[in-house]
């Protein structure tokens, strides 16, 4: 019964999305305020029904209702309850329902949290989001119904969740990632609404900025969790593979980064308006493209589920409609929203422009590398794959170009600055950064030129921020009042840029300094790695809730002193019989020690073992967290709320005046 309720609720939500996409849009076109005023309640209603539908599916999973096909093939009665819950989105149908749920959530959030928006704009925005919801709910209902039953012939027990997905990181990775992916639909909807209305001003940018920041922050967290999960769960210690699906999440992030910075220029100076709109369309299109790549199974990837060509076709058509439709609209209306504001070349605007060019080019090169195998295949030239060397060769130089500009950004001024002021401001940071770049890598022999470069770039970034911070405080009457005057959006910028610096250091240090050994070890063997002594004591049998495992016991010492006990496992899951590697990691701010088991080798109890020493690998993920925190802090800025009070006051003034 419960799955049928869920199915029914999804159908109702689908109908609501149909109304939401048409009636308020019609109202906005004809100036019918009754039709427009329906939009917020329709949006909330849509959320309620999708949530009911999702809750029903979750209940079916938690109650082990194996007559539902999805539960039967992706869950098992032995599965711990928390994984039964996360199994809801550990498969194609359920993850689509999660997509729809989060889209409905964002739509309702815009409806509820935007009383300052003029009704005309709000109804257009919500209609656009309703139209996107139609696409996704139709996809769910017509090609991948999560509530399909297996009647008669429900199995006694389910086929189990893929053991790779039975992990705490995977409980929150997809929801956070989708919050980011789908969050760009808000920026997209604002952009389309502006094109429809033909009006795009500073207040438009002020409305879409906090939404874009929050979506981008969630996307950063989602990508970071995915990378962290791959690191400890896939058992080979890698944290980024340039896998097509990783790229699928990374491209919207890159485009979103460009969008955030171009929105800043649009809000503060009314610049790059039509460009900002294009970026918003671009970022969301890339999110959809990512969904297509993941869900259609056209690419070989660890994320691909068993595939069905009909699904791929559906998303491809949907993608074509969204991208084609919005670009056509853009072509017709962009002249109406373009800006006529000039700026000097030596100014913050041109630095932001550099940011945009770099991020756009980075997005396009990643896009090209990801789609290249598909293009070649479609032309019948064979099956190729584009490996990490391509992406590293293209991406790393681009980021290295970006950082010098990034360090100058905070100290620069809007509209017109002058070179001599920059020179005077940046003299000390340059000197100190060069000094850091030369000296700090000396701490780790042998001297590594790439690490020196990374230290140089990130300390340049850090010192640029410090210089600006100091300037701001120096002009205040006292330090306390100066600090108090700094806005959350300023802090957000500082934190996010610091996060980027931490990322650069972490990525380069761990890539350059990591020591990795795959070797055969017998119980009692010892191995020295980067000054740490790894001693393999024994292998023991252990039992978990739904698996049995061989557990290797390792003791790690340094100069005779105990450092950690590491117990990696080789698990065999009972329901599916699949084998899984569980790595053991001793985490630290400056180094990770990582042990994973391969397979038994030979007859004398020896195992293949993977020993890694990974310096500063945590900095990368800490950096990503800082970036997300920065984005959220910036979105919390008072000026996005102050405006509401101001509009209210002015509308009241109008009322009183009348």
């Amino acid at each position, binding site marked *: 019964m419960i799955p049928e309720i869920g199915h029914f609720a999804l159908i109702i939500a689908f109908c609501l999305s149909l109304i939401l996409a048409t009636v308020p849009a019609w109202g906005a076109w004809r100036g019918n305020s009754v039709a427009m005023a329906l939009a917020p309640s329709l949006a909330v209603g849509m959320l309620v029904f999708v949530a009911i539908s999702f809750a029903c599916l979750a209940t079916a999973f938690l109650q082990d209702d194996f007559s539902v096909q999805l539960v039967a093939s992706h869950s098992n009665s032995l599965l711990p309850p928390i994984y039964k819950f996360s199994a809801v989105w550990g498969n194609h149908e359920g993850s689509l329902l999660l997509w729809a749920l989060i889209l409905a959530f964002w739509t309702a959030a815009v409806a509820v949290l935007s009383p300052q928006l003029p009704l005309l704009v709000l109804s257009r925005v919500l209609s656009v989001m309703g139209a996107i919801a139609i696409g996704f709910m139709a996809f769910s209902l017509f090609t991948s119904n999560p509530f399909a039953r297996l009647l008669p012939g429900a199995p006694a027990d389910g086929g189990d969740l893929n053991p790779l997905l039975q992990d705490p990181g995977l409980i929150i990775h997809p929801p956070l990632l989708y919050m980011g992916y789908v969050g760009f639909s808000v920026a997209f909807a604002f952009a389309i609404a502006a094109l429809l209305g033909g009006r795009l001003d500073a207040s438009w940018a002020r409305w879409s900025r906090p939404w874009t920041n929050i979506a981008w922050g969630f996307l950063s967290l989602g990508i970071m969790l995915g990378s962290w999960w791959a690191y400890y769960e896939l058992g080979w210690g890698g944290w980024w593979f340039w896998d097509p699906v990783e790229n699928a999440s990374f491209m919207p992030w890159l485009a979103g980064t460009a969008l955030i910075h171009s929105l800043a220029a649009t809000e503060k100076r009314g610049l790059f308006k039509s460009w900002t709109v294009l970026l918003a369309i671009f970022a969301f299109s890339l999110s959809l493209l990512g969904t297509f790549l993941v869900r259609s199974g056209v690419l070989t990837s660890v994320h691909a589920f068993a595939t069905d060509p009909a699904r791929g076709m559906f998303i491809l058509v949907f993608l074509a409609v969204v991208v084609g439709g919005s670009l056509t609209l853009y072509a017709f209306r962009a002249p109406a929203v373009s800006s006529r504001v000039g700026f000097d070349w030596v100014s913050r605007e041109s630095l932001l422009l550099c940011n945009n060019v770099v991020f756009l080019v980075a997005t396009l090169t990643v896009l090209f590398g990801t789609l290249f195998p598909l293009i070649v295949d479609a032309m019948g030239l064979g*099956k190729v794959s584009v490996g990490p060397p391509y992406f590293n060769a293209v991406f790393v130089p681009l980021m290295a170009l970006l950082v010098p500009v990034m360090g100058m950004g905070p100290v620069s001024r809007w509209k017109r600055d002058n070179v001599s002021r920059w020179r005077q401001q940046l003299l000390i940071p340059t000197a100190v950064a060069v000094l850091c770049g030369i000296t700090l890598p000396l701490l780790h022999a042998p001297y590594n030129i790439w690490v020196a470069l990374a230290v140089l770039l990130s300390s340049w970034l850090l010192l640029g921020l410090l210089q600006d911070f100091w300037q701001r405080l120096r002009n205040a009457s006292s330090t306390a009042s100066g600090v108090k005057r700094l806005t959350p959006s300023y802090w957000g910028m500082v934190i996010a840029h610091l996060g980027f610096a931490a990322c650069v250091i972490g990525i380069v240090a761990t890539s350059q300094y990591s020591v990795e050994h795959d070797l055969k070890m017998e119980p009692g063997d010892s191995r020295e790695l980067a000054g740490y002594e790894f001693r393999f004591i024994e292998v023991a049998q252990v039992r978990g809730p739904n698996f049995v495992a061989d557990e290797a016991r390792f003791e790690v010492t340094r100069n005779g002193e105990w450092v950690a006990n590491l117990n990696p496992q080789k698990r065999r899951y009972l329901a599916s019989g699949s084998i899984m590697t569980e790595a053991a990691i001793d985490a630290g701010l400056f180094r990770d020690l990582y042990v994973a088991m391969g397979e038994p080798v030979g007859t004398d109890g020896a195992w293949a073992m993977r020993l890694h020493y990974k310096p500063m690998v945590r900095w990368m993920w800490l950096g990503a967290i800082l970036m997300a925190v920065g984005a959220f802090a910036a979105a919390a800025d008072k000026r996005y709320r102050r405006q509401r009070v101001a509009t209210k006051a002015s509308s009241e003034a109008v009322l009183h005046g009348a």
Partner: protein
Amino acid sequence: MHPVRKQRLYLVLFITLFSTAAIGLVVYALRGNINLFYPPAEVVAGSAPVGQPIRVGGMVMEDSVQRSPDSLAIRFKLTDYEQAVEVVYVGILPDLFAEGQGAVASGVLNEDGVLEATEILAKHDENYMPPEVTEALENSGYDQDGNAK
């Protein structure tokens, strides 16, 4: 020239230069960093290049896996049930690597027609098969279990 036009001119020049550099970088990076996929039959027929990175995929042949007693070296055969390619690899294999299962090996073919693999990819869940392997099997006219269609 009008200042706004002048600015636009510089902008266009800047973007052109930058994207030219980027395209150059892309072309340079693509050269030598793409590897073509070959089914075993084509490798045996000699259409795969020797000494260049390629990928070969198929089913791991039953009873073909041999391990070295004192190192992590392993030798096995990948087959599309028509022909088989010998693969050598040193390192830890993925968890789902097993005889009778699909796998993709990337590496360099040596003079003796043996693939010296640097990376082995196995499928990552029970029901999933790398698309290339599926297609290679389709072309050879066998299903995953080696039964002729």
